[in-house]
């Protein structure tokens, strides 16, 4: 049985300009101890998709489908039920550690709060445990840092605080939404390394959300590529890098910045922008930007089909080679 089994997740927003289909029939699963990466350009529905799982999406979102965590349905579950899952069994790390931490509460207290809530620890016991956690996530002088405020720490240290908070109750799943995007390139590798270490040490699964395939190569086991609210390709990380099937995956690989390159990791390589879906169209959503799109791509929607062992793709012309060649093969 999978740890997390998401089926047909669909998230719609009613806006003044009409309905927006942020996530469209997304299905995936996560096994215990696995690191799965959800990759796609900004605005393709990654955050909306994962926030919906824990009921963190505002009431404007219209959510359908199913998300079973440990055989417990999360979508549509009561707040009371969700509160027992949040922070305890499924924990989150968000993109911007500055805004994600409360500016007027010490970082130690913010982490201790989770332990007091879910483990019922006394303030003194929670404090000792937090200092342990700080040490574990690589925060120097953890006892002194307990009483620091977020603005007194660097971005990397703040993200380590967020991670300490997330692993405090030994969750079975850690959801990290662009955990390194707001950080300096030099800090990013350390945070990713820490996530991997924690997975190896505790056996928790990690759902790593990122727009940068470069982040994925070193730590993910499996990759799910999303485009405009849909899954377009899924593969083991090695297969994905060595033999990408979808044209969009290819473009993402080409867009990986070279090692030591600047801090801007935005995708330069793909012309055009992610369309905002109003409705499920009768076409491949990528056809407008695809270099090899045929007549059929514009008139019919490709299904999701097996393309190799552990690899599947939603494309009418899977694996087709186009110039330029793929640069970012896995080492």
């Amino acid at each position, binding site marked *: 049985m999978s740890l997390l089994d998401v089926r047909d997740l669909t998230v719609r927003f009613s806006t003044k300009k009409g309905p927006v289909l942020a996530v469209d029939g997304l299905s995936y699963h996560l096994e215990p101890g696995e690191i799965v990466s959800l990759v796609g350009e900004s605005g393709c529905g990654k955050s909306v998709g994962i926030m919906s799982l*824990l009921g*963190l999406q505002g009431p404007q979102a219209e959510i359908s489908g199913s998300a079973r965590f440990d055989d417990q349905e999360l979508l549509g579950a009561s*707040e009371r039920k*969700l*509160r*027992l*899952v*949040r*922070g*305890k069994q499924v*924990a*989150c790390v*968000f993109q*911007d550690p500055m*805004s*994600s*931490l*409360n*500016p*007027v*509460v010490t970082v130690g207290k*913010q982490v201790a*709060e*989770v332990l007091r*809530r*879910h483990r019922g620890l006394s303030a003194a016991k929670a404090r000792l445990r937090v200092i342990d956690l700080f040490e574990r996530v690589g925060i120097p002088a953890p006892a002194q840092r307990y009483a*620091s*405020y977020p*603005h*007194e720490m660097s971005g990397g240290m703040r993200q380590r605080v*967020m991670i300490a*908070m997330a692993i405090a109750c030994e969750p079975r799943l850690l959801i990290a939404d662009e955990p390194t995007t707001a950080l300096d390139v030099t800090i990013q590798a350390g945070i990713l390394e820490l996530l991997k270490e924690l997975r190896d040490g505790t056996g928790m699964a990690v759902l790593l959300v990122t727009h940068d395939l470069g982040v994925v190569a070193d730590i993910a086991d499996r990759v799910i590529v999303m485009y405009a609210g849909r899954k377009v390709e899924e593969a083991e990380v090695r297969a994905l890098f060595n033999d990408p099937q979808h044209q969009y995956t290819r473009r993402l690989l080409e867009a990986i910045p070279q090692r030591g390159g600047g801090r801007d990791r935005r995708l330069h390589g793909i012309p055009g922008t992610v369309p905002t879906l109003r409705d499920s169209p009768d076409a491949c959503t990528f056809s407008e930007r695809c270099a090899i799109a045929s007549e059929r791509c514009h008139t019919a929607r490709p299904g999701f089909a097996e393309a190799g062992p552990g690899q599947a793709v939603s494309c009418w012309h899977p694996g087709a080679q186009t110039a330029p060649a793929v640069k970012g093969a896995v080492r």
Partner: protein
Amino acid sequence: MRFLARAGSALITLLIAVAVVFLGVRALPGDPAVALVGQEGDPAALEAVRQQYGLDLPITVQFVKYLEQIVTGNLGTSVRTGMPVSEVIAGAIPVTLELAVVAISVAVAIGVTTGVIAALGRGKATGWLVSVGALIGLSIPAFWLGIMAILVFAIMIPILPASGFVPIDVDPVAHVTHLVLPALVLGSAFAAVIMRQTRAAMLEALTTDYVRTAIAKGLSRRQVVVKHALRNSLVVVATVVGLQLGTLIAGAVVTEQVFVIPGFGKLMIDAVTTRDYPLIQGVVLITATAYIVINLLTDLLYSLLDPRMRIMSGGSA
């Protein structure tokens, strides 16, 4: 450092205020000597009064003498009562201070509570009711509210005294009952302002990332609202309270007039209507000082509530 700089600029502000008041008072129509001696007073008596209070000297000399006096803590002698101005003011200030403190406490308690309720109940009947209540509280002038309060609670249902003031050492119970209506009247508009600010700050705080983090931790709704959203909103509320203290003093003038309370506000009006120059000067000087000190204290309170402000004021981690 920042605090010292602010204190310095406060002093300069104060000096300017003194000069403006000094000149402004002398621009008022009416002769204080005439007010004292009476319209039909004989010229010799007028002259004697003018000499006694230095009103016959050139205005620059009067100003320098006045500054000298202030520095030594001497605010002059009230023309009308013959008592030292400092003594008259010192007698009135505690009364107003007590009224203000009670009014603020009532206003903060009501304003913050209803503000949170309004924010959490947005789009629901509760939120709407509280907002309309605040709008009414804001739009009713203090004097009208005061008269209505007297009419209802002192005349129609006589449970509270209509007006007056009883010192605490004379009768503590009567002291409190005499304060209830004026404090409620004075605090009502203030409560409405605090409610609106709290509501706005809460609505903003509830959409922040750190509140999302708090929810993602599995905290209860109450913990999320009180420990995370409200804690941050209070920074805004504290500032508003500080900035509105001036308005509160203005409100005290009216309230004390309506309820016949011998406080600072009533003293101010009495001083102006009787052309008591030294008293007017003293009253305005004290008001300006209070205003400046309150602003400094607000700054201090702000840095207590918001740790990010501490670095700017020179402290460090």
